[in-house]
């Protein structure tokens, strides 16, 4: 089984979010970048398939040379090889079209993406890949098993979960549950050393039209300070929630 794991290179959760260039670009100054958490759950599941079922795992990212440490980390965690498409990931449709090219070339059986990235939160790339290729697609996956040419997948739904089956090739949008937090791997020294010698192929992007563009960023207005209510005066809290906030 050939697995492709699509990885976004995103600011660490604790990063300060600031913008530069007239609020038109994210300010990467002093920001630590990581593998998008939803993608990391998927990558870890892919490595499980590699170890348990002999799968071959390729990781791919659309990004500039600055994103290579993130791909190397994925290799250190255990991916067999990496591909970087040398372009700025500005628009979901554009990114999906780039990934589709890689998938067509590599004939992957399973494409695992995170259900959304923690920077743009678009949540569209996995579905678009599936739509463009006509592959089966399951989003918000919290469990994934493959037996021969078919997969059994559990996805989270509002107020519960749903089990379905689909034949490969399959695209999934994954999240926590594919593996648990405790299953995530910190690369060890041996992994880091071998990652240096694994193949990281750089491909140039194909032409694809841009359908959406982030033209400007804004930070939320500063919040007014919290109104503290004394623990002995909860009537005041009830009254504030009713009369001021109007939520009860």
């Amino acid at each position, binding site marked *: 089984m050939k697995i492709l794991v699509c990885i976004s290179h995103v*600011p660490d*959760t*604790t990063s300060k*979010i600031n913008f530069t260039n007239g609020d038109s670009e994210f300010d990467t100054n002093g920001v630590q970048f990581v593998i998008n*958490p939803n993608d990391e759950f998927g990558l870890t599941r892919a490595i499980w398939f590699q170890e348990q079922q002999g799968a071959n795992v390729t990781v791919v990212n659309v990004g500039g040379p600055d994103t290579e440490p993130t791909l190397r980390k994925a290799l250190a965690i255990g991916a067999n090889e990496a591909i970087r498409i040398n372009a700025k990931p500005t*628009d*979901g449709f554009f990114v999906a079209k780039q990934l589709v090219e890689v998938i067509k070339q590599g004939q992957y059986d399973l494409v695992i993406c995170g259900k959304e990235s*923690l*920077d*743009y*939160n*678009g949540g*569209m*790339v996995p*579905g*678009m890949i599936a*739509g*463009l290729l006509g592959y*089966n*697609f*399951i*989003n918000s996956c*919290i469990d994934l098993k493959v037996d021969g040419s078919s997969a059994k997948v559990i996805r*989270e*739904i*509002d*107020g*519960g*979960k*749903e*089990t*379905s*089956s689909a*034949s490969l090739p399959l695209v999934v949008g994954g999240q*926590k549950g594919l593996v648990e*937090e*405790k299953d995530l791997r910190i690369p060890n020294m041996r992994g880091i050393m071998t990652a240096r010698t694994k193949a990281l192929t750089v491909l140039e992007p194909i032409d694809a039209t*841009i*359908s*959406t*563009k*982030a*033209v400007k*960023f*804004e*930070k*939320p207005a500063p919040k007014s300070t*919290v*109104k*503290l209510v004394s*623990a002995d005066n*909860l*009537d005041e*809290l*009830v009254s504030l*929630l*009713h009369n001021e*906030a109007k*939520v*009860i």
Partner: protein
Amino acid sequence: MSLLIYAESAEGKFKKVAFELASYAKKVAESLGTTVTAVTVNASDVSELSKYGVDKVLKVTNDKLATFNAKAFADVIKQAAQKEGARVIVLSSTTDSIYLAPLVAVGLEAGYTSNVVGLPLSTSPFQVKRNAFSNKAFNITEISTDIKVLGLAKNSYGLVESSSTLSTEDFSPSLNDADFNVKVENVEKVTGKVTIADAEVVVSGGRGLKGPENWGLVEDLAAVLGAATACSKPVSDLGWRPHSEHVGQTGKPVATNLYIAIGISGAIQHIAGINSSKVKVVINSDPEAPFFKVADYGVVGDAFEIVPKLTQKLKEFKAQNS
């Protein structure tokens, strides 16, 4: 060239988001000088949509669509959009709608923007404001394609009534076998309990509650408010509560009217997941807990004393005001 919405229903009845979507779409349609068409799937009574400005309903009734299937539902929406010549399609942010939205976008070669939090800032060029960076910022996105798909963030617009004269047309899109290649085998749904996705109020507990045996506090308060219960990540990691209740960045997002956090310190990952809630209340014994920085109202003190008292006060309040 009307504007199209997909008005979601469950067991034949519209979800509240269907009306929020209609309210929003009506306003957008007015600025574009057009009307609102809603496509419905197995909804029994569609007349309620007229209260929120929908002009026309394309009513799909098909047993094959009894359970949700993203590809098939996306196909229905695509065909409805083509039939109406819709240039703008507005979808909600339920788990099902964010699942099908990219498929609709591909089918119509449309630019798609999710997490939209307000009316278009301009319709030419078409610009909308959306949540990004896990609710820590907004970005203004310009959609340059002829057809546009918008995903409206939950609870970002609210319900606005505006009556209309509704015309209803039965619509039978042509579905093919490939639409059903993903086969749903089993659906497990919590019944008789308010889900986090549908709740107007969420009461959430953290490690400060010291153990799963104390969750009665959270449940009692939630019961008075008709709220869903939730928990922080450590609580679900410790197995005190099921994963399905975990809210935060890697858990479920919460965008509710009122979010009450009990014994939750407010790690940045937790705040990222709940920050779109309108009003946040924190109850915590540590006045330095980061949650106080993002909350609207706070009570410093022992949750084990405060929560039962608050539950009692709210009970009295509800008794007087109902």
